[in-house]
């Protein structure tokens, strides 16, 4: 390694492995410029126009056929797509890494809108298990009820259910916000790591069980607290954030957020131990 005290600024950076020049040739490395954010797309995604609207009846299609057709419509520049007759089919709308205004006129089965990044989705029906699993960005609104594992492992975005949801909502979530207008089942926020869950109604047993981090807000009754889930003080900034979020979500606009309970991780579980696993083994 070069002597960092004597080399020029440019070569010091190069010595440390930090590039200052624009890379050319075979490299795929890109440097992010916020001014060019609009120009960034995933490989294989499309520049769509929200004002270009079309309808797609998926009644006689399989889920792969329907998803392929959505992709085809996006490739033609359609930015608003209305899906007719989803009929509870599984895995509809998965893997959309595009800005898109997607509307489902009916209910979805399992894994609807899974692994998406960017679309704004409205589902005028219910959804089955694991809706919007792994959502990275965007907004998904469900007008009716949702099944279990709602928003499992989401990284970002807003996931809103205006009705009630099943068990294990927000399991393993790592970011983003989940908002529930009705009640939520057992093990809500199970092992969540980051992000926020808002439940306006009641919630079942073992709320926030083994949560690492993140915050859960509950408006109704709590069946029981899970392991290491503890109450925390609801601050004025929490209340401001809740009001703003509920307003944006078009849900519970007149809800009295000042009476909500705030639940966080107590951080007393073994995983907060300072010892590395090998050290722990030695200590035991």
């Amino acid at each position, binding site marked *: 390694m070069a002597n960092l005290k004597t080399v020029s600024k440019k070569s010091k950076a190069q010595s440390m492995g930090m590039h200052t020049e624009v890379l050319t040739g075979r490299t795929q490395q890109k440097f992010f410029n916020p001014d060019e954010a609009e120009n960034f797309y995933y490989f294989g995604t499309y520049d769509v126009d929200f004002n270009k609207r079309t309808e797609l009846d998926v009644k006689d299609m399989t889920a792969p056929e329907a998803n392929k057709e959505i992709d085809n419509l996006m490739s033609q520049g359609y930015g608003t797509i209305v899906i007719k007759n989803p009929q509870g089919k599984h895995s509809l709308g998965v893997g959309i890494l595009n800005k898109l205004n997607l509307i489902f006129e009916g*209910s*979805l089965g399992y894994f609807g809108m899974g692994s998406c990044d960017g679309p704004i989705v409205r589902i005028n029906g219910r959804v089955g298990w694991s809706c919007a699993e792994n959502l990275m960005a965007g907004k998904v609104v469900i007008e009716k009820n949702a099944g279990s594992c709602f928003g499992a492992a989401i990284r970002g975005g807003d996931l809103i259910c205006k009705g009630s949801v099943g068990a294990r909502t927000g399991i393993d979530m790592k970011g983003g916000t989940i908002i529930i207008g009705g009640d939520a089942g*057992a*093990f809500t926020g199970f092992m969540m790591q980051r992000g926020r869950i808002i439940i306006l109604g009641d919630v079942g047993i073992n709320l926030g069980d083994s949560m690492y981090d993140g915050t859960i807000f509950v408006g109704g009754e709590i069946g029981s607290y899970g392991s290491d889930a503890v109450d925390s003080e609801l601050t004025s900034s929490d209340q401001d954030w809740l009001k703003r979020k509920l307003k944006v979500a078009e849900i519970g606009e007149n809800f009295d957020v000042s009476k909500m309970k705030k639940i966080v991780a107590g951080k007393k579980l073994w995983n907060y131990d300072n010892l590395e696993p090998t050290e722990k083994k030695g200590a035991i």
Partner: protein
Amino acid sequence: MCGIAGLIHRGKSSNVGSELQGMLQALKHRGEDSTGYALYGDTDGKNFIMRFKVGENVGEGSSSVMEDVSVYDERKKIVDQTLSEMGAKVVKEERTLPYSLRYEIDYDTKDLLDFSQRIESIPGVEILSMGKSLEVIKDLGNAKMVCDRYSLDKVVGTHAIGHARMATESGVDIKSAHPFWGYPFSDVSVVHNGQLTNYWNNRRVLENKGMRFMSECDSELIAVYIAEKMRHGASLEEGMKESLTGLDGVFTYFVATKDSLGMAKDTMAAKPLVLYESDDLVAMGSEEIAIRSVLPQEIDTYDPFDGEVKVWQI
């Protein structure tokens, strides 16, 4: 994995055979090792309907063996003779398949325990169902295959439950297929999706109380467990509520009687169930897609919560 489905029409009858076939066929991706129907048909209520088998349809992993039709014929003769000795008169007889029979029996008794024990003491004979309205039909294959084989699509009645099975805990054969009859209760049937982890402990206790098990399928335990509770005076709903703590594991199950249909979900809500409820129809299944086969229009459905028990009357 397995899939379950059920429906009950309130205040009217419908083509429940065809409806349940559609629901179960929509769930065939959850398992098509075997499919079973428990249909509550419209009858005059005078005679018992006994569905029974005198042999097995043997699939992968089954402990049973295929036998010659002559063996079935011999067993059937013994069944006929035993019925005659008990004073039971066979009013109507159907032999859909060499090993599967349906008898309408004129028999005046409220306690089917002695009756069932005598019939099932014949080696290789198992009563699939006994009741004034209930008929349990189960065999290998998906819902459509079983429906076609037994001509179930024209059955008219008030309610029905069914099961599409992916064999995990026991082999592929009829004895391990659902639904299970709530032996020895007339018109009680059970289907289950899940795994019970205290099967053997409960089974030993129940066998000591005189209850019978025909398979090694954990789901049979639910039928026997509920039947034993009802035998000691509990209502269907009470028995189901007790099962939430008495049975360990993950489960969603349905129980049907002559005039009611119930569902129960374990306290961890680990197994799926979607429910549609209106004034004249309740339809439920492991997935929304099952309900859509009978109600294609947009409807409101929901997932029952953990530890929930519900019972509906016709």
